[in-house]
Structure formats: structure tokens, C-alpha cells
């Protein structure tokens, strides 16, 4: 009696699963349309770069000095002056309505204080309702004012500062958020493929009653799981390349590292996340439930707790702890390292090992969860 694994049976399952996938328009759209749409949406619309922040100016000095400070704000292109105020009291309603995010208040005798060499304070009122934008606006404003005061000092005294710190940002010289997003998106999209596509595969057999016939054959659980996984592994790798291509062609995201190492890490991460989807599918045996569980347990954590959207270091301790078991966290670090820093296995080997661990453990769990017995 044959009892070992059979390549023929595995291929039969893979072939059948590929036909299901190719005949189903929704899964095709989900697999290829959604990743491309997400990359473009995140790259353009949900850009984390904030520009042209509306601001108001209350200039009580009305001198050349005060006007050139305002010019410094508008010249930066981070701000647009939309309102000029006559009274201090006008600032509040504007901020309340959200018409402006920042109000610059220049006190009287601003120019006189500057020329006398004394401190010349200005006030910036920031709408803290959107904390993220507020912090960014504050940071920009501080930088602009600091640059202005340096210029003012230099202009007044005509001496060069002895010490000057010149900042250079590595890996993402222009601080473009698309450079951070595209590598992260590769991980998130893979999770979507796992969560939405493979979570349906086993549950669909239960829902449609085809499992009974399948379970009555001599097929081994490992043959079913690996067979079901193979077509989606191909789909996932194609998606990785498509996202990488869009990143390069549209957003000019650099690729500095080793391509083979990148594909290797993607391969194992994909096996892990696909297995997770199948594991859920095999455990809950209903398509509806499988999709919901997959969304909550794999897709959302990789979107929110992986460092893709929010910096893990700034999270509450509890969430930081949870993020330790989110595989996407390690994968995102690895991909950013490979793409932006050009580092290889010598630095990223723990992440590579983590991916291999995730892939093998996920696969083993999925095979174990698959039962050929009816309930």
C-alpha cells in the first residue's frame, strides 16, 4: 500500500486550484488589481508628506523684517498664507473652523528688537486637533524661524558662526514617504493575498460540499495544503515584482540591495502568510467567517502594528509587545533594509531566519489543522 506523499496528487490539487483562481474574476481582481491600486493610493493620496498647510498671519509690526519672515514661510512651500488678520481675536474662529492650521503672530517692534540685537519672539498658534499635522507644522515653523534668525544674525553682524551642524539624511535623502511606503506595502499586500485569497480555499470546499468527495480520496493533507498554496505563491511573487516595478517606475524608490536575498525573504514570508490564511480556512470551515478572521488576525496587524504606518518605538508598551509576534514587522524591516540601505544577509540574517521560521511553522500548522474527517 502506498502511503508516502505523491507528487502527482500534489500537482493535481495545484492545477485544480489554479483553474479555480483563473476562472474567478473577483479573485483575479483581488490578487492583481488591489495591490496596484493600493500602491498608487498610498503613494499619492495618503502621502505622509504634508505640504501647503493653510496659515494665517497677524502682523502687528508691518515692517520689512516682519514681511520677510512671512515670505520665508510661503517660500518654503510647506505653508500658504490664506488670511491676514486685523485683530488677535480673529485667530480663534479660523482655527476652530479648521480653515487654517497655524497662525503666526508677529508682535509690534519686531524689527526694532531684531536690529537692537535683542530677542524678538514671535508666536505660533497651532491647531492641535490633528496631532500629527500639528507636530509636523510646528517642526516646519521652527525650522523656518530658526533659519530666518540665523540669516538675521548674520546680516546684522556679518560674521560666520563658528560651529554649524549640517544635517544629512541617509537612505532616504529627500525624506520621501513613498520610499518608506513601497517596501512596507510589499509586506501588507502579501498579507492581503493570504488573508483574502487563501482563507477562502479550504472553506470553499466545505461550503460547496466538495470536501466530502475530496476527503474520500487517498489524498494526504500535506498534498492538499501545499497544492493549494502553490498557485497563490506564484501570484504573490508576481505581486511583489509588480509593486517593486511601480515603486521604481512611478515613485523612483531605489533598490540598493541584493535582489536574490530579497526574493528569498519574500518567498518564505509568503509561504508563512499563505499558510496562515489556509490555517484559518481549515479551522473555521466557512468562507464568510474565514475572511473576517483573516482580516482581523493577519491583515490589520500587518497594516497597523508592523511599523508600516506607525513607528513601533512610539507605540504603547502593550502594542509594542504584540508587534513582536507580527511577522510583517520583521519582513518590513528586512525589505526596507534591502531596498533603501542596500544591506544584505550579513546584517539582516536574523530577519531572514525569522522568515524561514515563519514559513515552515505556518506550513506545518496548516497541514496539521487540515482534517479529512467530517464532523
Amino acid at each position: 500500500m502506498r502511503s508516502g506523499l505523491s507528487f502527482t496528487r500534489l500537482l493535481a490539487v495545484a492545477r485544480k486550484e489554479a483553474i479555480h483562481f483563473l476562472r474567478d474574476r473577483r479573485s483575479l481582481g483581488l490578487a492583481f488589481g488591489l495591490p496596484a491600486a493600493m500602491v498608487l493610493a498610498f503613494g499619492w493620496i495618503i502621502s505622509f508628506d504634508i505640504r501647503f498647510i493653510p496659515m494665517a498671519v497677524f502682523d502687528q509690526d508691518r515692517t520689512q523684517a516682519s514681511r520677510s519672515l512671512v515670505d520665508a514661510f510661503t517660500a518654503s512651500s510647506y505653508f500658504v498664507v490664506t488670511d491676514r488678520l486685523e485683530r488677535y481675536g480673529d485667530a480663534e474662529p479660523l482655527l476652530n473652523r479648521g480653515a487654517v492650521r497655524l497662525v503666526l503672530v508677529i508682535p509690534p517692534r519686531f524689527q526694532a528688537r531684531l536690529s537692537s540685537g535683542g530677542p524678538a519672539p514671535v508666536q505660533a498658534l497651532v491647531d492641535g486637533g490633528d496631532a500629527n499635522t500639528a507636530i509636523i507644522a510646528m517642526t516646519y515653523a521652527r525650522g523656518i524661524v530658526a533659519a530666518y534668525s540665523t540669516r538675521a544674525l548674520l546680516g546684522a553682524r556679518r560674521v560666520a558662526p563658528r560651529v554649524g551642524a549640517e544635517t544629512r539624511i541617509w537612505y532616504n535623502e529627500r525624506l520621501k514617504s513613498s520610499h518608506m511606503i513601497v517596501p512596507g506595502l510589499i509586506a501588507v499586500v502579501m498579507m492581503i493575498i493570504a488573508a483574502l485569497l487563501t482563507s477562502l480555499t479550504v472553506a470553499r470546499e466545505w461550503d460547496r460540499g466538495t470536501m466530502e468527495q475530496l476527503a474520500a480520496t487517498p489524498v494526504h493533507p500535506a498534498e492538499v495544503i501545499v497544492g493549494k498554496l502553490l498557485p497563490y505563491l506564484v501570484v504573490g511573487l508576481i505581486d511583489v515584482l509588480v509593486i517593486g516595478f511601480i515603486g521604481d517606475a512611478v515613485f523612483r524608490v531605489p533598490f540598493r540591495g541584493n535582489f536574490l536575498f530579497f526574493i528569498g525573504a519574500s518567498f518564505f514570508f509568503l509561504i508563512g502568510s499563505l499558510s496562515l490564511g489556509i490555517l484559518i480556512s481549515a479551522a473555521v470551515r466557512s468562507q464568510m467567517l474565514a475572511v473576517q478572521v483573516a482580516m482581523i488576525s493577519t491583515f490589520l496587524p500587518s497594516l497597523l502594528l508592523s511599523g508600516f504606518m506607525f513607528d513601533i518605538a512610539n507605540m504603547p508598551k502593550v502594542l509594542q509587545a504584540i508587534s513582536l509576534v507580527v511577522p510583517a514587522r520583521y519582513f518590513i524591516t528586512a525589505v526596507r533594509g534591502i531596498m533603501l540601505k542596500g544591506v544584505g544577509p550579513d546584517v539582516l540574517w536574523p530577519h531572514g531566519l525569522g522568515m524561514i521560521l515563519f514559513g515552515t511553522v505556518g506550513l506545518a500548522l496548516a497541514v496539521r489543522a487540515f482534517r479529512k474527517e467530517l464532523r
Partner: protein
Amino acid sequence: MSLAVSVRDLTRRFGDFTAVDRVTFDVEEGEIFGFLGPNGAGKTTTIRMLIGLLAPSSGTGAVAGFDVLTETEAIKHSIGYMSQLFSLYADLTVDENVQFFAGLYGVRGERLKRRRREVLEMAGLAEHGRRITGDLPLGWKQRLALGTAVLHEPPLLFLDEPTSGVDPISRRAFWDLIYGLAAGGTTVFVSTHYMEEAEYCHRLALMNRGRIIALDRPAALRETMTEPLLCITAEHGPAIAQALQGAPLVLEAAMFGRDVHVMVEDAAAAREYLPALLEGKGLPIRAIEEIRPSLEDVFVALVHREGGAVLG
């Protein structure tokens, strides 16, 4: 003669409910063995235990020489199975379904070519290999399901209500296929709730409420019924069946299609007495005559003798 199936006290419980209650029987090689009973009698549960889809709660047995408790995967190599509900892949073509199951049963190369041709010819689908399975009429789907179940030429075939929902002509054609397979030496284990189909079986187990209440050749089963049987043709069948329950001379009255079959103590006396009795209740009859019992009558009589009710 060796045994294709041999089980002793096979039982399956779902919580407090006993779906199959200590069934014991043997199926000989080359036989067409029928399982007859109403829906919910435990036929499907029994078959699922035999083919390794469901673990028995207790009892022992062997199928194709392998233990039903411990060697379920070995059993799966030696049998073909067609489940009650159509369970091939509706979005695959006929050919793709055949190829998939051929792959799972390790049918390859020249053998696959030969078997695919034979099976599609047998199912009358030779011209329809490229059609999407879901678009086929139900009778065709059933023939395809039978075809995929015998792709690997299993010595033992389990068919769970293979003809349910299919029109009578397709049913007849399907049974011709079963006879053909049996003639080729395949042992066929088939369940049905169509009494007329049961007549086609070599031996028959009558099942009710999880238990086998009789097991024999169809002719022998009919002979076990010694009470005379009358058939009443009338306008208000259900009302008559109701009115005759517990009436003098009447043992059991049940609807059969649009007629009422009445099991009585004495045929002659009942033919005199019953028309008058019914006339008196405002239920005139068209005809009353003595008939030869069918398997369904036997079934009703056996359930009556046990003092139980027919489920379903």
C-alpha cells in the same frame, strides 16, 4: 466467497442522538447490496463510517480487508465513492474534473487516456469534455460523478443515494450503469429511499431510526409479510388512511402515492366490512382489491411489527 464489507455493532452518536445503532452486516464480493430507508434513517452516516470519513463511536469492521477504525486511508485507495449531494467542482470542465480525480487516485499516462475515454463513454459525456460541469443537467452530473468514482477501477463502490432528485428515466439509465459495473465484478454498496430501486439489489438491508430492521433478498423480504394487503382507490386518500387507523380488522393503513394500502387480519372479511364503514363516515371509495405486497409494504409492516414509527 470473501467479504467486501463486514461490520459488527457499528454505532455513531452525535451528542445524545444515536444516528446509527449497532448495525451488523456482511457484504459479499460482487454483490449489489442495497441500503433502504427513509431520510434520516442513518444510511449516509453508516456509509461515511465505512469509507473513513467519520469515526465510529463504537463497533468494529473491515472494508476491502482494512480496519474501519485504523486503516481508513488504505480503504480510500480501494474504493470509489459518490456522495449524496453532487460534489464535483462546478467551475471545472468535465475533463478537468476527471483529470483532477485521476491525479488523486494516481491514474496516469496511457491508463489515464484509456480510463478517461471509457469513463466518459460510459457516462455518455464523450462529446462534452469541455463543458463546464455546473452547466450540465443533474442526471448528467450524476453520471459524471459515477464516472469519476470508478476512474481507478476500484473493486468496491459506495453510492449514497446516487439517483436522488433525478427523473425516473435517468434513474433507470443510471441503474443500467450500476448493473454494468457489477457484471464487471465490482461490488456495489448503494443506498436509496426509492423502494422500486431497492428491487434491483441482490440483497437489501432495511434501515429505520439508525437500526437495520431486516436484511435479505428482496423476494425473501416480501415473503416475510404474511398478512393480507388491500389497496383502496378513493377521492380522499389521506382522510381514509386516518379513519382506518385502529379500525376493526385493520393492522396498519398508509398512503401509497394516491392510494391507501391497508394491512388486515382477514382479506375477505375486510373487503366486506371496510367499504361500508367508510361510506358511513362520508368517505366513499372507488375500488378495493387484494394486492401483492411491495417492498415498501414490507417496510411499513416491519416497522409496525416493531411497534415503531417510520421516520421521515
